[in-house]
């Protein structure tokens, strides 16, 4: 685990409490669902990876009185910004320009680090503008100069980049492309009219050889234009199209006109309906397979080898994921980020809402699970060295010794303002391949309220457990089953005894290798809380008959946690 040991994960049970679960899995899940409640949580199950979260990642809905994980909240975007230049992008621009920054924020296509605009200016012979400029990666030293792109200005990189292809050739704008398409189509039409018969597509083939092979965008636009013209050509059928039935649509007007006009015109219109045809030219988006580009690619791999090709991740980051060689790389404009408010999925209450200012990291509303759910933490119980002796070596969580019992202190701290009664439960052996024995020495205890710090000092109701007097013979404090270990104002700690299992079953001869993380000792712990709290204002409003003002209600909370103790060392 990248998380340092020991750690605690909390499970959000939204996936089996989902309201819609009935609809789809009626048939398949019925069998499992029956013993769903009885089941102990298995942290090894691949599904639990999706329901376990560190406490800091969880929110808490006060109305549903439940933990809310990223899966059971609805997110709504408040604003968009570029993480690199911290400029806010209005939503209309997001719609038109896409999800990437349109300023100078680019990431390196090789190593993803942010690129800088640098000048290629010759210091001995400076040009007046300081240019030409390139985008360069300060980490891996890739730069747009490698793909033959240079800029005239150091601002507005996106606009300049959109106009130049790799190798420095200009890219026509969509409008120019449209014009070009029209022009070529006109040409084509004239040609076919001239020849009238047997018009082979050789002229187009020639043209294609002349140009570089059209890129994805061009083909797409050609296709889109082709389909559009084909659909427009389907005149009469559209009159009764189900979408256009609307008084405001012009087609309904013409439909009415059609109804009352003479029948001949109607017939004329209907006659026009020819079936839509397929694309016939490259202008219309038809691309006959051409083996030469493949052959060229093979040649190139043969010549330039591994280094000139792109890794899958690099390809996926590119705007056009179908490229193969490093000369086709384009700098990747940095993705915009959003500030998002979160709502509870079931009651739609706002759970968190950041301030809309981009540079502010504060929140207007923030209902964290941290403030409602007790924090469980584990640490090893190490003997306190006698005073004067050198400090003992810190406990190594990465090397738990199989078969030797170890004691850990489970520390439960209470963030709420009422005292809680905690019941912990765990199965006696951990699930998974390596079964370790786990005993919680004191599974039921109380944790004090999170009162003002001063209350603690003033009141003397909680007497700290006298520990010094109970030291065992080996310097280890005496551990008693059924008794808590220690207690403070709003926390209580108990002892867990763990006997780490054996990585290799000594009875089995076969030497099976352990999978990733199978040597990690994780204890699923079921936590149940009981406490009395003030009836919240909204509940009172909802059910006046149930309680009067100031009445306290009894509440329960229960959830699974997974405590990662450490790694079992191989013998």
């Amino acid at each position, binding site marked *: 685990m990248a998380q340092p040991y020991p750690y605690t994960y909390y499970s959000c049970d939204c996936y089996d409490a989902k309201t819609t679960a009935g609809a789809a899995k009626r048939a398949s899940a019925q069998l499992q669902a029956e013993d769903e409640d009885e089941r102990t949580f298995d942290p090894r199950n691949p599904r639990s990876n999706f329901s376990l979260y560190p406490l800091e990642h969880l929110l808490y809905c006060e109305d549903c009185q439940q933990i809310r994980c990223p899966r059971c909240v609805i997110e709504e975007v408040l604003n968009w910004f570029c993480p690199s230049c911290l400029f806010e992008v209005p939503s209309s621009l997001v719609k038109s320009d896409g999800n990437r920054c349109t300023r100078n924020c680019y990431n390196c296509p090789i190593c993803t680090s942010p690129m800088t605009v640098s000048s290629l200016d010759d210091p001995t012979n400076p040009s007046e503008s300081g240019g030409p400029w390139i985008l360069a990666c300060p980490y891996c030293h890739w730069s747009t100069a490698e793909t033959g792109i240079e800029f005239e200005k150091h601002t507005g990189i996106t606009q300049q980049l959109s106009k130049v292809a790799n190798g420095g050739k200009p890219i026509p704008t969509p409008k120019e492309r449209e014009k070009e398409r029209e022009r070529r189509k006109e040409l084509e039409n004239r040609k076919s009219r001239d020849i009238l018969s047997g018009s082979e*597509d050789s002229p187009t083939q020639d043209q294609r050889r002349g140009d570089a092979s059209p890129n994805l965008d061009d083909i797409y*636009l050609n296709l889109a234009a082709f389909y559009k013209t084909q659909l427009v050509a389907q005149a009469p059928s559209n009159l009764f199209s189900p979408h*256009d039935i609307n008084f405001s649509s012009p087609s309904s007007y013409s439909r009415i006109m059609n109804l009352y006009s003479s029948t001949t015109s109607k017939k004329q219109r209907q006659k026009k309906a020819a*079936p839509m045809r397929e694309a016939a030219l490259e202008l219309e988006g038809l691309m*006959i397979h051409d083996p030469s580009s493949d052959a060229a690619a093979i040649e190139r791999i043969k010549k330039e080898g591994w280094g000139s*090709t792109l890794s899958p991740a690099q390809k996926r980051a590119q705007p056009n994921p179908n490229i193969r060689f490093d000369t086709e790389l384009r700098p990747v404009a940095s993705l915009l980020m959003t500030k998002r408010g979160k709502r509870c999925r079931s009651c739609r209450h706002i759970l968190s809402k950041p301030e809309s200012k981009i540079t502010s990291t504060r929140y207007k509303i923030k209902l964290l699970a941290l403030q409602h759910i007790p924090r469980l933490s584990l640490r090893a119980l190490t003997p306190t060295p006698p005073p004067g002796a050198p400090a003992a070596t810190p406990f190594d969580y990465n090397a738990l010794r199989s078969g030797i019992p170890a004691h850990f202190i489970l520390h439960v701290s209470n963030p709420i303002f009422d005292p809680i009664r905690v019941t912990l439960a765990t199965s006696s052996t951990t699930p998974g391949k390596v079964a370790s024995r786990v005993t919680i020495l004191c599974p039921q205890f109380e944790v004090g309220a999170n009162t003002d710090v001063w209350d603690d000092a003033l009141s003397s109701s909680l007497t700290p457990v006298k520990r010094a007097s109970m030291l065992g013979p080996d310097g280890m404090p005496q551990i008693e089953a059924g008794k808590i270990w220690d207690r403070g104002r709003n926390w209580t700690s108990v002892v867990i005894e763990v006997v780490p299992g054996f990585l290799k079953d000594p009875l089995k001869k076969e030497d099976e290798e352990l999978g990733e993380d199978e040597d990690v000792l994780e204890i699923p712990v079921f936590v149940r809380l009981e406490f009395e709290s003030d009836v919240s204002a909204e509940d009172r409003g909802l059910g006046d008959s149930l309680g009067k003002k100031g009445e306290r209600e009894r509440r329960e909370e229960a959830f699974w946690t997974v405590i990662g103790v450490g790694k079992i060392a191989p013998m």
Partner: protein
Amino acid sequence: MASGLGGERKVSASLSRSVRGTTPRLQDLAATPESPRTPLLRSTSSLFGSPGGSFRTEDEYVVLELGSRFVRGGFPGESAPRCTLPFGPDEQRRVGDYRQWDPEHGQTRRKRKRGQDWGQEYELYRMDLTDLDLGLVEDRFERTMREAYSKYFLLDQKPRRILLALPPRMPHALMSTMLEVLFSSFQAPSITLLSSPVLSTVGAGLRSALVVDIGWAETTVTGVCEYREVQEGRTIRAGKMLSEEMARLLNTALEDELDVGAPKPEVSFEEADEVITRVGWCKSKPKSNRNTLYFPARTSPILEEFEDAVESPEPSITIPFPKNDPPIDLVIPFAQLAKPAETALFAPDTALNEFDDNELPLHHLIYRVLLALPMDVRRFCMSRIVITGGVSNMPGLKARILAELDALVQQRGWDPVRSYGSASARHEALLRQKRESEELRREEAGDKVSESLDSDNSPAPLSAGLQETEIDQIDIKLSHLAIRNGPPPTCSVGGTIRGVDSLGAWAGASLVAQLRIKGIVEIEREKFLQYGLQGASREKEISVVPQRQSMGPGVGRGAGERASWTLGVWA
């Protein structure tokens, strides 16, 4: 699958489908001098739909393509998806587990988990549901989609319809899992399902095609006629087998390279995958030493080169294996890298009778599917072979498939009987006789066309396809007219093996959504959440033709409010 009659019905149905959802046409606008406006606040009966009703059809779409290893997502009208998200083990970690960014983790090789198939962790689903945890699929899909929405789509609160491109065969349990995620977690008001072969056809600008989708787990060959799937064949010779084959090759090569005492190398899935996508290639021409007496001299001179020119020194590729222990740079002959594709996809060394039904080599499968198609559909499909899917990006593969298929057709013709057994001599004699008599007749027919037609007492009249067509002045005029007004002649090309490049299923879906074409399978959120997939009507053809004709101009039941919905090909 499709009889001649059924084919015709489908054709007509799909014709109207293709023209159904059109945008308000420009020429309508031009026809009306001033476009009519709807008076505001006019009370309308529900039958006619509210004037604002058409705003619903203005809803925006999100276009998703769901494969077994990747999901692509983006918006209509864009040529490439906004994101291509893989399903890998790194996407399955717990929140707060950052080990994938640990430099040490990047240097260690992942081991396959016990009992897991090759690459199983990298696929979202498999068609065999027996040991597939649908809950896990749901979790993974949900997380990936959440990433797509929150990192790449950055949408505002407006609910978006979803256009989902799916393979045409999908277990219902799996489909309903996916749909449920999209409906419940992403609040889609409706989801339109479109089958990916049809979309690939759209993406190629065609109406009929033979779509060869070389995917991950299997290759599907689908005959599409007028946007309908009419025939399908599948084989497990696809990406998975290819990458297993590549891993085997790399393992043996590494073993040779390493010292004797070194542990046996086991290349991980990632490494094999990377080698395939970076430097994998395929010989564009079948090996000549096979029992292929057929190879015609029709291939271009570029292709010859690989076969003939034995280069000295033999070109080789250096592949770094930083994850190997010890890290190693493997030098492997370039020709070796073409072997996996050869053995996995074409299996040239195995006799045809040894293959099981589900593991036919690609070219044989394509041939079989073509053979099973009705003759007229076959004519169209064989010259519109669209090869898509992840593996098809491998350089040389498309050309190879087409060459192999061409060879197969040349050798076998379109005779479904492969072996006449003891009658083969007789059959050949018959064939020869027929051919000779045809030749003879053709010569005769050149002299006197009309006579052969009149002589109804002749024992075997010349088959219609071989007769010289009469030259009719009216026909000539019509054909001239057709050239002027009708589709260009390239639209009716048929009868030869020809490959057409497609933009792929995602781009096809993007086109379809951009043109606002409604799909047959449109699932409303409310209905799905209420009934699940069981709510679909059993009929496959409910939506299009009858609905449109029966409605008449006044009945404003928008297409969005279909009374029942169907699962179309997925039913």
